[in-house]
């Protein structure tokens, strides 16, 4: 029996889908059997980030309404044999599927996969309830902004009520802004949210580039964000991986860039 992990944030645009795609891929990279589930019905993105949009035949709503079997709707990744995705429908609405139906699907997927990564839509309404229905754990994604932290706090409160243990990923950290005090630092965020920190991901242009190319960032080991996601995946498997030092590494990057003559 595998484990279902919901990736959620409350606020939109903090990188839930990117995190889901990268963690899913990173786990596959570590040899796990992974299925990603997009529950953002009506606004599906995970397929685009994964570059699997053109392979979709059936979706989550088709499964819910009985037009196909669950494994018919699963889309196999183009890079890994053991990585699948259950896409959301683009035409329907969040209310077209119930938490019970999602829970049932997740339960069935857990039998077959080591990890079921559920990409949650923004907000705390029906879409959120659908996404967390079958989850055993949660990854709460936030960025170092007050609004994102506020929403993450709200979501953690809701997860606590449903007794889903949550861990935190702080996304898009800019070392230079943290250093100058313009951005919330990691300690501040952790103090307010008071949950375990699963990982930090530095802001990296490569993430946007690779998302547009339909290639998860994790595949590119030269990207700092990729290393961060790989670290997160290893921590999920129980490895002790130290947090990436923001300052020092950026120094290395600077030196490296200087060396190449672009810094």
């Amino acid at each position, binding site marked *: 029996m595998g484990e279902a992990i919901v990736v959620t944030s409350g606020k939109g645009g903090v990188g839930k889908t990117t995190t889901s795609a990268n963690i899913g891929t990173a786990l596959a990279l570590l040899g796990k059997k992974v299925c990603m589930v997009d529950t953002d019905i009506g606004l599906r993105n995970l397929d685009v980030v994964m570059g699997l949009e053109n392979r979709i035949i059936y979706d989550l709503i088709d499964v819910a309404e009985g037009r196909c079997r669950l494994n018919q709707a699963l889309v196999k990744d183009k890079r890994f044999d053991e990585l699948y995705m259950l896409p959301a429908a683009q035409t329907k609405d969040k209310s077209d599927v119930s938490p019970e139906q999602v829970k049932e699907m997740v339960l069935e997927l857990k039998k077959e996969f080591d990890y079921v990564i559920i990409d949650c839509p923004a907000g705390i309404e029906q879409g959120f309830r659908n996404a967390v229905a079958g989850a055993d754990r949660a990854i709460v994604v936030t960025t170092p902004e007050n609004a994102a932290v506020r929403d993450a*706090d709200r979501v953690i*409160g809701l997860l606590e009520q449903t007794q889903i243990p949550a861990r935190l990923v702080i996304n898009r950290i800019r070392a230079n802004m943290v250093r100058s005090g313009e951005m919330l630092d990691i300690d501040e965020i952790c103090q307010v949210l008071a949950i375990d920190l699963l990982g930090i991901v530095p802001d990296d242009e490569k993430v946007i580039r690779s998302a547009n190319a339909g290639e998860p960032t994790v595949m590119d080991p030269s990207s700092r964000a990729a290393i961060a996601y790989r670290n997160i995946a290893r921590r999920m498997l129980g490895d002790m991986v130290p947090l990436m030092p923001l300052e020092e590494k950026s120094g290395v990057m600077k030196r490296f860039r200087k060396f190449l003559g672009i810094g």
Partner: protein
Amino acid sequence: MTEKQHITIKGVKEGLIFLLDDHCEFSSLLDELQFKLEKSHQQLLSGPIVHVQVKLGTRQVSEDEKEQLRSLIRQQGNLLVQSIESEPPIVSQLEDGNNLKVLTGIVRSGQTLEHDGNLLLMGDLNPGGTLLCTGDIYVLGALRGLAHAGYKGNEEAIIAASLLKPTQLRISGVISRPPDEWMTGDAAMEFAYLSEGAMKIDKMTQLQRLRKLPVLFRA
């Protein structure tokens, strides 16, 4: 009389002491007093002039009510009311101490905690979270959200926190928004209170001056 007696009459060297119950209705006290004086204790209360001390317990009475008591006792020719006393009400601090609720946990964004009485939160109040209390609010942790003490109109209420960095503080009907209105250095171990209708912030060590607390450590 079938019901519970509310008046006890004690004889002492100086005369008589009337102990009046402080939990029943005042009118039933008067009725019972009249009954006792005229009926049941007739024989006791006749004879030479006797001084009477009336003790009301913690009941607070108006001058009017005192007069009612006096005239009732005076009807009995030989009784002379020497004093009518009531004990000061039990110091509110002690009462407060009894109804202090201790809670552990984090009040997160979107969550509201409401309590009748005083509240001690062992944990944080996060931005977007709300604490509502009819009495005092004490936070052993960081107070970053909205705290409203004495929200049913208690202006004596205070808000104290290990780390006082609220988005908004309210005491009774007064609202204060830090840091627009005030901001102190480290915000550690502070409390907010009302002084002449305005919110004031001070260090926890100053609280005893404000409260004039009964000395707890006298022994």
